Each structure stands twice: as structure tokens, then as C-alpha cells.
């Protein structure tokens, strides 16, 4: 789960990290009022969407007080922002953050993430802030300073201090950075984050200020932080993915027309690859999980049957814990309930395969069972292509 910039900044401010003065606005008039209240010459309007790259997409505007702030706000609010990270469907903008625009003397990058290979939380800092850390890493890796944090010991005072003195030799500025690093780390571990980032942290005169901030939470640890659920902005998430997750399914929307049901994440990814290899295009990733029940399989099937983009359904199951008979019952249940308008191709294998096949046979439903995976994928792609060309 991701937070909005303003939510991330509130978290920072609550713990004592300095952020620019600002306010939220949900309509152009309040944007103007908020801007005036800041009593400053220059303000910045920032679209609150769950995506980076907002500036290039027109979601961030720097204005002087003599500009028409109301129109500028109106031109962002309510539109759908398409950035290089949102995909073609973009993200709706329902909220603006209006902030003072402080003078920027220099820009610093600060970030905390979990390093997968070492299994250690890693704090990253760079004096080359303002651009993405991946870009800094590619262009000037020697300008990134990192410390790995022993998970039992936590971040030691000296580690934050070392990073701070790598960014500034001015004890006053280094002291402020030091404090902010500790705050970032605290947020990261106390809320089980996947990423906490200030980019840029600007130095404005003798003051450090978090100009932009990002806090992404780990879904697997949200149960420990029920209070964070109220920060969720459902308008920024795909509703189908969200409701699938609540059913215990892993569903991700893709651009094609072949609906897929698979058990296991790896096999599900491989199924997409295989469809693509044969020239087809999957409509989704859908992993029913290792130990899915009949009901979960039925729910998964219904999601596909409800998706108007789907031309053909591909079921690919290698039964391990998930038994093939359970799968068959789930699929049959969903089809009976919804009625079947689409061709279904299934490849099933593994535990209780015989019972599963028998159930399909008995049901009399037009589910085409293909014994080998490669062949099944080829047939699915063929069917999808035939149906798509008919439709056009």
C-alpha cells in the first residue's frame, strides 16, 4: 500500500522532520485560499497521486501569487494523470497539495529500503538529490553513501551521523540531516515499510526541508498497523485487484484478451510468458494460491467471466496442495452460476488428476481439456486470435 506525498510528509512532521508549509485543496477556490494563506511570493501545486514522474506529466505547477492560481488548480484537479509509472490508464487527481516554494541551495537524496540479498535494512544518502536513486546509481555511484543496519542492533547513532557528515561538513546542517535520517529509519521499521524516501531534501539557507516524500508500506505487515488502513486511498488502486486480494487471490490486470487462472505465482508468470511466446496476449495475472478452496477457485473464475475484455479463459493448474478435484468443482460452480459465454481451455495436472478430469467430464460443460501445457497454450492463443478477428 502506498501513501500520498502529503500523508508521508505528515508522518515526517509528526516525528519532527521539517516540511514546507502547505495545505490540501480539493477544489480550485480552496487552492487559491490556501495559496494566499501561505503569505509567500511563490507557491507550488502538487497533484496527490500514487506515482512518481508527476512533474513531467503536468501534475506539479510552480506559480507566483500574481498568476491565476485558481485556473492552474482547475487544470490539474479532476483530470487523470498519466505518468511514466502509472501505465496508460493513469491515476485520478482529486486532491492538491499547495505549498510554499522555498529557495533551493542544494538537493539531497535520503532513502531507506530493505536490501534483499543481505536481508538488511539499508539507508541510502546522496548529495545528488532531485533525481531518481536508480539514475544516481547509474550515473555517479560514488555519490551514493549507504549503511546496512544490523537487524538486531537497529540503526546506531554513529551510522546516521556518518551519513550526515558525508552529505555536509557544516555541523549544523549535518545535525539536521542526522536527525532526519533517524526519523526515516524509525518510520521504516515501525510501520514495516518497503520504501521511505525524501527526494529531494533541500538545503535552504541553514535549513534542511523535505520537499518531496514517499512512504510505501508492506502489505504483509499491514495487519500490525491497522491504524494505517485509514490512509488508504482507494481511488488510486485498481478496484478489481483490491477485491481479488480480499478474496485471497493475486490478481493483476494486463492489456490482453486471454483470461488466465493459475495456481502458484511462478507458474502464473510462466503461463503469461508462454501465451506471449505463442503470439497471444493475456488479460491478467491470476494466482489462486497454493491451497485455494473450491470457493476461491470459483471466485477467481467469476472475475474472468465478468471481464468484458476476456475472449477466452485459460486454466493452468499443477495440483500440489490444491487438488484437481477441488479445482474442477470450483470452476464448474462458477460456470453454472454465471452461465458460460466464453470458450474455456484447461490444462490440469498433479494431485487427484483423475478425479478432476472425471468431474469435468460428468459436468457436461464445454471445457476443453488439453493434456500438455505447450499445446494448451497454443490452442488458447489460436482461439483468442480467431475470436478477436471475428469481433473486429
Amino acid at each position, binding site marked *: 500500500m502506498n501513501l500520498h506525498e502529503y500523508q508521508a510528509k505528515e508522518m515526517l512532521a509528526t516525528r519532527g522532520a521539517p516540511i514546507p508549509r502547505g495545505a490540501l485543496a480539493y477544489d480550485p477556490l480552496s487552492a487559491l485560499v490556501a495559496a494566499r494563506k501561505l503569505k509567500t511570493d511563490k507557491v507550488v501545486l502538487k497533484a496527490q497521486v500514487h506515482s512518481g514522474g508527476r512533474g513531467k506529466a503536468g501534475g506539479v505547477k510552480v506559480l507566483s501569487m500574481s498568476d491565476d492560481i485558481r485556473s492552474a488548480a482547475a487544470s490539474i484537479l479532476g483530470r487523470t494523470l498519466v505518468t511514466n509509472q502509472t501505465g496508460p490508464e493513469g491515476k485520478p487527481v482529486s486532491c492538491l497539495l499547495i505549498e510554499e516554494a522555498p529557495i533551493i541551495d542544494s538537493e539531497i537524496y535520503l532513502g531507506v529500503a530493505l536490501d534483499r540479498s543481505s536481508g538488511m535494512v539499508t539507508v541510502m544518502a546522496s548529495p545528488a538529490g532531485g533525481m531518481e536513486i536508480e539514475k544516481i546509481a547509474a550515473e555517479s555511484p560514488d555519490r551514493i553513501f549507504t549503511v546496512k543496519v544490523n537487524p538486531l542492533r537497529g540503526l546506531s547513532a554513529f551510522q546516521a551521523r556518518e551519513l550526515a557528515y558525508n552529505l555536509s561538513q557544516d555541523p549544523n546542517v549535518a545535525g539536521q540531516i542526522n536527525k532526519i535520517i533517524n526519523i526515516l529509519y524509525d518510520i521504516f521499521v515501525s510501520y514495516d515499510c518497503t520504501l521511505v524516501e525524501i527526494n529531494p531534501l533541500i538545503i535552504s539557507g541553514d535549513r534542511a526541508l523535505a520537499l518531496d516524500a514517499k512512504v510505501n508500506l508492506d502489505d504483509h505487515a499491514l495487519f500490525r498497523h491497522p491504524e494505517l488502513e485509514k490512509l488508504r486511498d482507494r481511488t488510486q488502486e485498481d478496484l478489481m485487484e483490491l477485491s481479488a486480494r480480499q478474496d485471497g487471490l493475486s490478481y493483476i490486470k494486463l492489456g490482453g484478451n486471454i483470461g488466465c487462472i493459475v495456481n502458484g505465482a*511462478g507458474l502464473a508468470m510462466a503461463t503469461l510468458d508462454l501465451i506471449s511466446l505463442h503470439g497471444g496476449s493475456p488479460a491478467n495475472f491470476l494466482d489462486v494460491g497454493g491451497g485455494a478452496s473450491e470457493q476461491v477457485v470459483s471466485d477467481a473464475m467469476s472475475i474472468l467471466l465478468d471481464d468484458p475484455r476476456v475472449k477466452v479463459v485459460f486454466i493452468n493448474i499443477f495440483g500440489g496442495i490444491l487438488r484437481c478435484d477441488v479445482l474442477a468443482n470450483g470452476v464448474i460452480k462458477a460456470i453454472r452460476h454465471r452461465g458460460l459465454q466464453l470458450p474455456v481451455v484447461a490444462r490440469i495436472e498433479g494431485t487427484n488428476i483423475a478425479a478432476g478430469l472425471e468431474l469435468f467430464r460428468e459436468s457436461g460443460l464445454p471445457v476443453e481439456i488439453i493434456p500438455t501445457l505447450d499445446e494448451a497454450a497454443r490452442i488458447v492463443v489460436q482461439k483468442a486470435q480467431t475470436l478477436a478477428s471475428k469481433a473486429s
Partner: protein
Amino acid sequence: MAILVNKDSRIICQGITGRNGTFHSLACRDYGSNMVGGVTPGKKGASVEGIPVFNTVREAVRETGANVSLIFIPAAHAKDPILEAVDAGIQVIVCITEGIPPLDTASALYTVKSEGRHLIGPNTPGIISPTDRCKVGIMPGYIHKPGRVGVISRSGTLTYEVVDQLTKAGVGQSTCMGLGGDPVVGLSFVDTLKMFNEDPDTDAVVLIGEIGGSAEEQAAEYIRSDFNKPVVAYVAGRLAPPGKRMGHAGAIISGGSGAADGKIRALSDAGVHVVENLTMVGSAMSKILEAS
């Protein structure tokens, strides 16, 4: 022989009296594994179809000489049993549990490593050594066949798929294991490749990667410099869009890193036979073995 688990493995199950714990402990025993005990606090003296239950791992180890543990504990509480297993002297810990908060895994893993133990998973189907009839996990045992090819994978069902292909192609397996689908897991490709490198009963390895992280790139690096057996690889997730968790918490392309293309390139460059079509993994390995 095999790596990590074999006929000398004395296995306990932490969480044995739970539904999954009971089911899979018995399935492991049915396969041939030496299930010597189970642990559920407060259930000492109970028996799961003849497998004795203890209150603590220490007690189980003392009474049974266990050296391997299979963990089925809900994600919210799974860190402690890993530490308990380490403290009690368990050498190989197989953690099936999915959805453990990564900071919990990271913290437990630190202790596992500093004590020199092995953690497989979490979010793994486990490990199986068919020749030794030793299965510590939830994979369907019957698809395996004793033999001399190692299989390591970040995915469960994808492993079954590949093992099934191998078996049907007449290629048996020495040890097959899932490393786990989480961002932070115990044993890595490199760790296990090193073991296969030393194992006189493994002739070749199938490596099944997926998007996210850089475990495949590190494996490529190691294979290039030190691994002296043939490797066939497949990497899942070429179609995955960035920023989305593809089922596995660890399968996510973030900030431009972790994509399949880079992994495939690294493995190819290291001399690995990378298969594009999943369904060709078994035949590819079969051909390589025939040629050698």
C-alpha cells in the same frame, strides 16, 4: 546422497497439530521421511498418528535427536519458531509459511546465519531428495524420481511443473528445493549451487528464476566463475509490469531493477542454457545429459 536433507535427516514439524502441519507431516512420513516428532506448546504427550508431540523444540531435540525442522506457523508469529529452532540446535529449517513480514524474516535470518544454520524459505514448498526418500515440504512426492539432477527454484508450482517434465523425460533428481517467493529468504541460488557443486551425486542443475531482486544475476556470477556442472535455466515473468507484486511478495520489478531480461542475459552470458519456453526445460536437460 543429496544436499541438505537425506536419509539421516531426523525431522520435526513445528505446528504439527495444526491442519496443514498434521496433513503434511503425515504426507512426508508416507513419502519415507523420518518424522521423529512435532512441537505444539501445551500439547506435550499428544501423538499425531504415532508422531510424538512436545511443548518446545529443545525438548523435541533432546528426546528425538532431530536436526531438521518443518515450520507451519501463521505468518504473524513465524519469527519466533525460527529462532527457537536455531537455539535448540536444528541445522536445517524449512519454513513453509507465506506472508511473513519481511522485517521479521530479516531479523530471524540474521540469527540463522550468524549461528551457521540453513533456512529454506519462507514461502517455500520445501525440499525433497528423492533417492533418499526424504521430503521436507508440501510438494507432491509422486512426481519425483531418484536421479542426478538438482532443481532450485523461487517458485512452488513452477518447480512441480519442471520436475514433472524431468521425470517424464526419464531424468531423475538428486535434490529439488524451492528457495521461497519472499523478498528476503534464507538460502540463495548461490548458496545451493555451491552445495550442488560439491555433491558427487549431482551431475547438473535446473535453475528456475523469476523477476525481482538480483538472485539470478548473483547466481550467474557464481556459475561463471566457479560452477563446473551444466545448468539449464528458466526465468519467469517477462510480461510482468513494473511496480506490481506478481503473486510472490518477492516477484516485483522495482525502480527498473529485477526485470527478466537482465537475468536471462546474465545467465546466458555465464554459459547457462536458458530456455525460453517453460515446457522445454525437461527436454533441454535431457539433451544436455545425453550429450555429455
